[in-house]
């Protein structure tokens, strides 16, 4: 479940672990509301950020870690849910979608190891964090619930506004990190650029 090739050093390992925890904390009860059989959850925002900040490989390890913990019975999904049961319930496809999506987000945002720019980030989180997640989630939901794909699709329109908002937030957050804490990305582009050019003048 957790890919570990190519080999990760301890910093990557720690980052993957911490982001798994971060996605879990974004789903804590009390922080954000949940309703319906499939929750509207800020955890998808965490998935987008994992891909955008950690890149495809470490990001995937991170989401894989979260899913493995859920599978062995820790209540880390929105609303304190967990256990092997969720992998045979109607949201199973979305969870797989997170794993595929985080890779797509990472690949697009870090394309060629370049500095993330807002439009590429937005395209990445939209494609990986929304389209891919739906593409995995909806068919499996229709399979498990034995309803038509179109019907599952209609039912899922309820998530679209929320997910678009999350994609915008993720883009803004990544922009703020690029400006405020470039070291967040140091495993990719920040490693190659000269660090902190000294103080620009005061306006």
């Amino acid at each position: 479940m957790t890919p570990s090739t190519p080999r990760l050093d301890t910093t990557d390992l720690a980052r993957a672990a911490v982001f798994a925890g971060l996605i879990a904390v974004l789903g804590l009860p009390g922080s954000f509301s949940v309703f319906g059989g499939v929750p509207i959850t800020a955890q998808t925002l965490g998935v987008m950020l994992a891909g955008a900040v950690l890149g495809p490989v470490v990001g995937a390890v991170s989401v894989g870690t979260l899913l493995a913990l859920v599978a062995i019975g820790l209540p880390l999904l929105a609303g304190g849910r967990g256990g092997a049961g969720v992998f045979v319930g109607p949201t199973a496809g979305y969870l797989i979608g997170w794993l595929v999506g985080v890779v797509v987000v990472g690949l697009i945002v870090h394309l060629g190891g370049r500095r993330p720019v807002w439009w590429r980030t937005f395209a990445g989180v939209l494609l990986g964090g929304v389209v891919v997640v739906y593409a995995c989630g909806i068919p499996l939901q229709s399979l498990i619930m034995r309803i038509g794909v179109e019907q599952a699709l209609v039912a899922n329109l309820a998530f679209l506004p929320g997910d678009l908002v999350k994609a915008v937030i993720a883009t803004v957050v990544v922009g703020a990190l690029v400006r405020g804490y470039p070291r967040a990305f140091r495993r990719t582009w920040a490693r190659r650029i000269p660090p902190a050019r000294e103080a620009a003048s005061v306006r």
Partner: protein
Amino acid sequence: MLTLYRSGTGPWHRMPAGPKTLLLLLLVLGVSLLPASWPAAAIAAAVCLACYVVPGVGFRELGRQVWGLRWLVVVAFGIPCIFLGVEAATVGTVRIVVAVVLAGLLSLTTPVAALLDVVERALRPLRVIGVDATRVALLLVVALGTVPTLTRLAREVRVAQRARGARGIRVFVVPFVVLALRHADDLGDALSARGVR
């Protein structure tokens, strides 16, 4: 860390974690493949009741699990009801609930540590393709340990922001991610210092 585990001494609790995982996996698979008909729903429900009647879990626990799925029931019944009719909706709902509740038996009756061992053992053959099972297990343990710290950091950020009159999720997420990454750097050093390569 709170878990879904409920301690007990019944047969499910005593069964070794590995075989139990396999058995439940097979049962869930079987239930999932049942056709959409009344007899199939009855079989599924019977299997489920049989699994929960065993001492150490019991119907109370079953009730608790099903109650936890109430929203799922509403949706799993509601949507197909509109498109497919009452029979298909009922049968489908029973099947989904039974599958989820059966799979739930695993975490209900097995401590997380035992399941970690199962993961580690199950991954060991993957050594040939470069998966280091011990390392994966360590990763899971470390990730679990980050949850209380991150919860505390999230609270720290929220309090500091309230003091400055700032609100909103963007404003929350940026410092939270920075703090999380700093924590990860410290954690990475501590792992190396304690001999993890």
